[in-house]
């Protein structure tokens, strides 16, 4: 009635929570889908092709490396996720070898050469993006206008990109970014920014759908609030205080809403800066990490000349993770009492 030879005899614990690596990865993929579908809807088939090429290149790289290592790891979903994120960080219309190279760089150089899943210290998708950005800057900054308004693939600058030109004007007479863009003939509303009716990278434009995805992940306990809140919060605070300076409107006049909804902030803060492998281990560490990201993003966006604020900030903070981890260690149980007892 019971075949004891078939029983699993293993070390305790004998039961396990329902989560697994693969489940986590596929759930993140799922949570990102709405934002991507919106991107394809906004920019057309070229966007879909860019995403598919990114995923294919990432999975193929992982499979090839798996053959060499004799360890097939495609099933865990992490390569698909990396490819998807590379695709989301690409402009919708560019030569296809660029996303392919970005994915290959992400998997081969960043992920595998540092020891594979979980051992890489830099976010692979972001590293891939930054790599191709500096190599093919022209293609990486050519944006399509969303086709919702009936127009065919027309190119145009992103709201954030055109705002940068304002910083170098000698005199401005506007109340903030929205009015400036209006005066430049590129009108955009907060609603456009929130829903994603703006040019930008494929997966970053819809703040609404990204937020929904993140809420889903919070609910599934795959991400915690610490990084998103400290990142977006510190960034918003700095923008509010100092963001108006470059527009000539003085302190405490920054347009918080415009800045949090534009660029790659939402995608970055919700999905890239929450990557488990490349962020600190403890809650306190994650808050410090988020604050650092917020500060750097503010600095680069308002005072830097590069449009890569979010990617660069997260990558720079990735480098600091080991240091943060070292200084945010949890105090072991029964350790403090020993010290106090000795201190007497």
């Amino acid at each position, binding site marked *: 009635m019971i075949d*004891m030879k078939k029983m*699993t*005899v*293993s*070390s*305790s*614990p*004998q039961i*396990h929570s329902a989560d697994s690596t693969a489940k986590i990865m596929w759930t993140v993929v799922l949570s990102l889908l709405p934002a991507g579908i919106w991107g394809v809807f906004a920019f057309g088939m070229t966007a879909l092709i860019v995403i598919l090429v990114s995923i294919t290149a990432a999975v193929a790289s992982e499979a090839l490396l798996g053959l060499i290592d004799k360890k097939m790891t495609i099933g865990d979903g992490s390569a698909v996720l990396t490819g998807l994120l590379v695709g989301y960080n690409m402009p919708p219309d560019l030569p296809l070898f660029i996303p392919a190279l970005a994915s290959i760089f992400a998997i081969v150089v960043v992920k595998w050469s540092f020891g594979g899943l979980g051992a890489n210290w830099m976010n692979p998708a972001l590293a891939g993006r930054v790599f191709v950005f500096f190599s093919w800057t022209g293609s990486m900054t050519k944006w399509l206008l969303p086709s919702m308004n009936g127009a065919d693939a027309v190119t145009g600058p992103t709201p954030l990109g055109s705002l940068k030109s304002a910083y170098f004007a000698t005199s401005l007479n506007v109340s903030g970014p929205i009015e400036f863009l209006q005066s430049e003939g590129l009108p955009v509303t907060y609603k456009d920014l929130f829903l994603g009716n703006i040019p930008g990278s494929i997966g970053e434009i819809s703040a609404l759908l990204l937020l929904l995805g993140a809420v889903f992940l919070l609910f599934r306990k795959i991400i915690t609030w610490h990084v998103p809140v400290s990142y977006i919060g510190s960034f918003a605070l700095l923008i509010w205080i100092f963001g108006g300076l470059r527009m000539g409107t003085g302190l405490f006049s920054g347009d918080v809403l415009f800045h949090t909804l534009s660029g790659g902030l939402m995608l970055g803060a919700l999905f890239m800066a929450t990557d488990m492998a490349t962020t600190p281990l403890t809650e306190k560490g994650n808050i410090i990490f988020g604050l650092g990201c917020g500060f750097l993003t503010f600095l680069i966006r308002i005072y830097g000349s590069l449009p890569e604020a979010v990617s660069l900030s997260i990558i720079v903070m990735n480098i600091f993770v080991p240091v943060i981890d070292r200084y945010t260690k949890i105090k072991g*149980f029964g350790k403090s009492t020993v010290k106090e007892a000795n201190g007497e």
Partner: protein
Amino acid sequence: MSKFKTFPKGGIHPPDNISSTGDTAIRNASLPTKAVIPMSQHIGAPAKCIVNVGDTIEEEQIIGESAGYVSVPVHSSIPGKVVEIKDIYLSHGKTSQAVVIELGGEFKRMGKTQQAKSWSSLNDDEIIKKISSMGIAGQGGATFPTHVKLILPEGKDCDYLLINAAECEPYLTSDQNLILEKSEEIIEGLKILKKLLTPKKIIFAIENNKMASAKAMSDAVAESDLDVDVEILKVKYPQGAEKNIIKSCTGREVPSGKLPLEIGMVVLNVETVFSIYEALVFDKPLVERIVTISGGAVKSPKTLRVKIGTTYRQLLEECDGLTEEPVKVISGGPMMGFGIFDLDTPVTKGTSGILFLTKKEVKAAQQTSCIACGRCIKACPMGLNPSEMNKLTLNFLFEEAQDMGLLDCMDCGSCAFVCPAHIPLVQSFRMGKNQLRAIMMEKKGANR
């Protein structure tokens, strides 16, 4: 916020699965026709076998003598004849000598009315001697000889006597069932312990998913003249771990590497208190215990009073067998228990439960490399970094792992339970601790 106390750091919430046996009455398992009684049923030196094949044995006769200070005798749970003495595997995978007794002859206690004796005239030494000679060892799972815990070293006082009825392992309900039926006897046991230890305070700690038992205990306390704090704790695993339950109830932290007595605490499992009661009042040795037989694959889960030496196979039959094929048979709870590979393994003093778990309950999955999610750190009730410790032990850097607190790990399994990469963390820590102890012994030897 909840009014129930708990420990602050770490801990997890596995499904408790206690409903199938939680409110049922304890029933007597039928007698084993052959009892297999191991000599090694407690931590410390195994008892020394003093019977031979062919001997006729009385019920409760000593068949194994205590073999040292940290050791207790072993009694026969049934009358009969020794038919075999052999080495067997125990549930934790180690071997032990065992005496096989075939049932026969007359019971001198079972089925007869018992005469309660007064223990109040006994002095402390006599009480301790009785507890040790009746073979009592902790029945919560660790099976440390109880008398050793009760002898306070010179200059140490017992501030708190803490009775651990948290029973935080999922599925297990033996303690919970026992409290429902024997709360007055437990109070009597506490009186004995109070005389012995003269604690400033007695705390009875139980989790808030066993409110009926908590109430039974509170009522019994109210009716008695004994002062006991019934402390209801939040359900959280491992609430019943000694260091954690002390923290939850008193806020005190047992220093790393030290015993509870260091901070004036004596912690005993509730069933052990009941056994102390039976030993002192009825001269009854530890020859039976309460065992929960449960798990999704068992047809009728039950809590049974079982004679030591009864095989798992017989108990499974007593629960009407299986409804489906299990993937694991566990001795003890699912978090710290052992998978067994032989149904003829006997129940010992430390067997709190026998579980037949289905695939759905076990939730095994493909192991991947660590994804650095930090969940294990959040789950560890000892404030350790399991992920890092695991990497060190796997690279044989045992002393570096100890710098991170490896020896503070109590194998509770919280880390491995939550690890999405399904890394066998506890297995690696067990191995690491064994290696580390060997290294430390060697160093000690070299210094001499």
